[in-house]
């Protein structure tokens, strides 16, 4: 019976080792947050996004008008002190609609991100970790990826009918394969690392290894990817609405407002111009956010 570790005498060990100077205590989270806040792209992108987010969340309080209040006597009015962004052909205030549109677009974007995040992670993790599943799962992902994403989204949305849920579903399905691939690639790298083998040697279960050790360390590319998914979901939602398979009226979405205005492009350019600019800003913000996260999370390509 070997002597117990718990009872082992410390005195016999090399005293040189004990009580070395210890680094300051710092949690990786704080360290990470500090690095993020020092990243210019993240700060600019984050602020842009935050502004839109605040506008969206407090749309009811901030928007000067009700988004769906028709007034056919004030149709297609040019921007003025009263209607900063002008009105559409229902006489609705574009600014108010854009603010509410932000809410729906962000909701859709966020839902797509969740959808993709969950399914992409599950599929990617499963095929990266359980190599038996890899071939079949990845062939399915390949097939989904071989459909041009936007056509896939249009097909799904047109097929199932235009509604917020279907738009989310369509974009979710279209963005999941790539996400799954990214997670898989990352899992493949992490699963070969020695701390994973150490966990196996300690007798940890597959689930524990996968979630606590592998996924926790394979998240960086996913998080970066998700910010870009967010951005492209907003773009794609706008496109679907524009093609007419987006959320039904009177819902204000960026794409919907643009689609509403496209028949009057020349006569009332503000109807299309401003929502387009707002999309540009939101997407720009998200992309910057993603860049910032990537710089901090993936030091390999840090600039």
């Amino acid at each position, binding site marked *: 019976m*070997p002597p117990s*570790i718990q009872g082992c005498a410390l005195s016999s060990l090399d005293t040189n080792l*004990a009580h070395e100077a210890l680094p300051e*205590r710092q*949690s990786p989270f704080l360290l990470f947050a500090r690095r993020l806040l020092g990243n210019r792209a993240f700060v600019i992108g984050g602020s842009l996004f935050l502004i839109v987010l605040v506008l969206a969340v407090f749309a009811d309080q901030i928007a000067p008008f009700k988004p769906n209040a028709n007034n056919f006597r004030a149709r297609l009015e040019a921007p003025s002190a009263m209607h900063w962004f002008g009105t559409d052909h229902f006489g609705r205030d574009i600014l108010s609609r854009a603010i509410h549109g932000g809410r729906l677009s962000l909701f859709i974007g966020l839902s797509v991100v969740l959808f993709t995040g969950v399914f992409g992670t599950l599929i990617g993790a499963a095929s990266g970790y359980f190599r038996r599943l890899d071939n079949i799962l990845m062939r399915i992902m390949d097939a989904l990826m071989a459909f041009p994403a936007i056509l896939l989204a249009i097909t799904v949305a047109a097929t199932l009918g235009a509604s917020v849920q279907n738009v989310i579903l369509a974009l979710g399905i279209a963005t999941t394969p790539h996400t799954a691939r990214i997670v898989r690639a990352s899992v493949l790298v992490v699963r070969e*690392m020695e701390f994973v083998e*150490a966990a196996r040697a300690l007798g940890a279960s597959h689930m*524990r290894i996968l979630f606590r050790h592998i996924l*926790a360390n394979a998240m960086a590319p996913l998080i970066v990817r998700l910010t870009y998914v967010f951005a492209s979901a907003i773009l794609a939602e706008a496109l679907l609405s524009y093609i007419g398979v987006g959320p039904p009226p009177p819902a204000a979405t960026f794409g919907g407002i643009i689609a509403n205005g496209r028949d009057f492009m020349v006569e009332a350019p503000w109807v299309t111009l401003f929502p387009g600019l707002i999309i540009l800003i939101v997407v720009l913000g998200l992309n910057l956010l993603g860049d910032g996260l990537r710089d901090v999370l993936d030091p390999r390509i840090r600039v």
Partner: protein
Amino acid sequence: MTEILIEARRLVKHFEPRGLFLKKKSEAAVRAVDGVDLAIAAKETVGLVGESGCGKSTVGRLFLRLLEPTSGQILHKGRDLVSLTPKELEERRRDLQIVFQDPFGSLNPRMSVGAIIGEPFAIHRLAKGAERERRVARLLDLVGLPRAAADRYPHQFSGGQRQRIGIARALALEPQFLVCDEAVSALDVSVQAQVINLLQDLQRELGLTYLFISHNLSVVRHISDRVAVMYLGRIVELADADILFKAPAHPYTRALLSAIPPGHPRAKRDREKLKGDVPSPLAIPQGCRFAPRCRFAVERCRSEDPALSIIADGRSVACHLVADGSLSVPPRLSPHSGAAA
């Protein structure tokens, strides 16, 4: 010989090329481990040396059944690990642990040191809360780290300190057998000495058994009781450390030792220069696998695969010429006789 703790018998590990469709029949498997016999006695340290890719790590992992052997047995206290159910294996795992080479890759960067060392207790549901903290603190004491280290993260520590964290984690379940896979290779010399001393102290205090894998011959020489030399998936020589280093028998061992730079500028060295590179484990030569590079090789070596057989001094050698006496084992000479005393 004392009681055998763990033993490999005819251990083979081939890595098959992957691919569901289109597996080509002609594609050879990587014969990483190709028939290894190795018995390790309780409380001894067996060194495993050899050049890169010869299969050292694979042997180490097989001993812990972190890899499924292609064939062969691993007997731990008389039970074949390969035949164990997952449940039984989980129990055995507490007796068998491993310390890795890479002080950066072997610790989960997202977990605090306390969580890393406490992970074994969590996995086996041995201790929780304050009790777990107490045990972690003891382990930190044991490897000479301050207790406050528990709430720091791996990235805040130096290589030597990280390696000690890895050792603490491996010791948490109070194992008897520890595979040290290049445990000091990535460390700077000054720190390397700290870890080697620690490992030796622990062995003395806790009665541990080590399989010490390294390509650094002087380190192996320093720490090992017995040394096994591997070449292309096979053990070619196995002997007491002193004997092996003073009087290498196998032509490969001889060449390996003579390639080590001397410890002193005035030390003379008569090199046995080895020609060429190690062949790929995809295409292991016929006959004796060392024959193509061996300067003593004869016809028989190229056709007949020599088995590891016992010669004098309790050493085993896999060489036809040594076995039949046509290649005499040199007298016990010090390879660097001119070194400063």
